[in-house]
């Protein structure tokens, strides 16, 4: 003879109670929070709510000044020189005012601006379109605002390159190793088939150092925390007129460019 309704309900209730109770016991025994405690950030690391940079192109007097800054980055990060514009890998580069700020186009531009090259790099956007399109989450935004790239995860689909309105991302069409002039043994290279860009020198910030370009710029580039009202960048933004690249797109770029009148040139 089978079981009656009352018996059936008893069995169901008992097994449900056992299943729920059993899980809590298992959870109590199997703990893996010991793992997480084994890792800490570096003690002397620079921290911020949102890293940002203010660049004053008027402080770059000659081409050598700009080249020094670009070279500092290139040699610190093992950036290859493929020798061809279409294969170019660039973290920091220069271009004309017209190309950097196309939306400000006007026929009768202040003469000093027309000829002035601007140093460009990843804007570490507040709302980065590259992060939104990345299918593997290889590129992501850190809590300190840096748009970071995890080369281990990059599959080279180049969606981020299409999404970035600033042209800040470059693709390695071939193995970059043979094209690196001076290898920095303390920093990795990249491999064929990954996208790379400026990282605001996360590896230097972790050691308590300023980014390589800032260090080489002799004060023309200022780096700091945008969320801290007493930081150097905030003081500069309050006291000088600055513009950003393509702010109308809503990406929230974090590189600010000081603009001075012709009399200050």
């Amino acid at each position, binding site marked *: 003879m089978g079981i009656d309704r009352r018996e059936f309900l008893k069995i169901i209730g008992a097994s449900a109670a056992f299943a729920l109770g059993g899980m809590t016991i298992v959870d109590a025994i199997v703990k893996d929070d010991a793992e997480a*405690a*084994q*890792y*800490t*950030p*570096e*003690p002397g*690391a620079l921290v911020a709510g949102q890293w940002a940079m203010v660049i004053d192109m008027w402080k770059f007097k000659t081409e050598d000044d700009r080249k020094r800054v670009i070279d500092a980055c290139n040699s610190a990060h*093992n950036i290859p020189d493929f020798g061809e514009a279409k294969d170019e890998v660039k973290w920091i580069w220069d271009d004309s005012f017209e190309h950097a700020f196309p939306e400000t186009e006007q026929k009768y531009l202040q003469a000093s601006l027309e000829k002035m090259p601007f140093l460009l790099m990843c804007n570490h956007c507040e709302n980065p379109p590259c992060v939104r399109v990345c299918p593997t989450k290889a590129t*992501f935004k*850190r809590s*300190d605002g840096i748009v*970071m790239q*995890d*080369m*281990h995860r990059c599959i080279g689909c180049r969606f981020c390159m299409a999404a970035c309105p600033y042209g800040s991302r470059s693709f390695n069409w071939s193995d970059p190793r043979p094209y690196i002039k001076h*290898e920095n*043994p*303390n*920093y*990795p*290279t*990249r*491999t064929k088939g990954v996208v790379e860009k400026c990282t605001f020198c*996360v590896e230097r910030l*972790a050691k308590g150092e300023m980014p390589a370009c800032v260090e080489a710029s002799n004060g023309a580039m200022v780096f700091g925390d945008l969320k801290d009202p007493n930081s150097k960048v905030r003081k500069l933004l309050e006291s000088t007129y600055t513009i950003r690249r393509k702010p109308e797109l809503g990406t929230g770029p974090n590189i600010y460019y000081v603009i001075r009148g012709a009399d200050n040139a």
Partner: protein
Amino acid sequence: MYNGGKILLGILIFLALATFPFYNNIGKADVEPKPSIDTPAIQKLSEKKCIEPTAFMKAEHMVLLNEWRDLAVRDNNRVYVAGDGKKYTISLQNTCMKCHSNKKEFCDKCHNYAGVSPYCWDCHLAPKEGK
């Protein structure tokens, strides 16, 4: 059977070739790879031990490195606290390879033996060593 002799001969030759690796290696002891830890940096250590016990490093170094890369790159946790409480900077190039500067004799020995080719060094630079 047509051409029976030729077919049998063919089968025999095929079997002889296909089983060559087996009878060729019968009785020979398997040579275990012995990764060398003879580098200047390790010679200088008073106590020759890695960041964790050797047995753990042998079996689990790939798991540890995988964890390291995620924690350093994604969470910005760049210090590893070892089981004995000592702290190490998380970096393949600047921590592991500073002691194990002999990639060919240390890493490659076992990796080749096990037939694995990890892509660490596609990007991470191995220390320069004489060829």
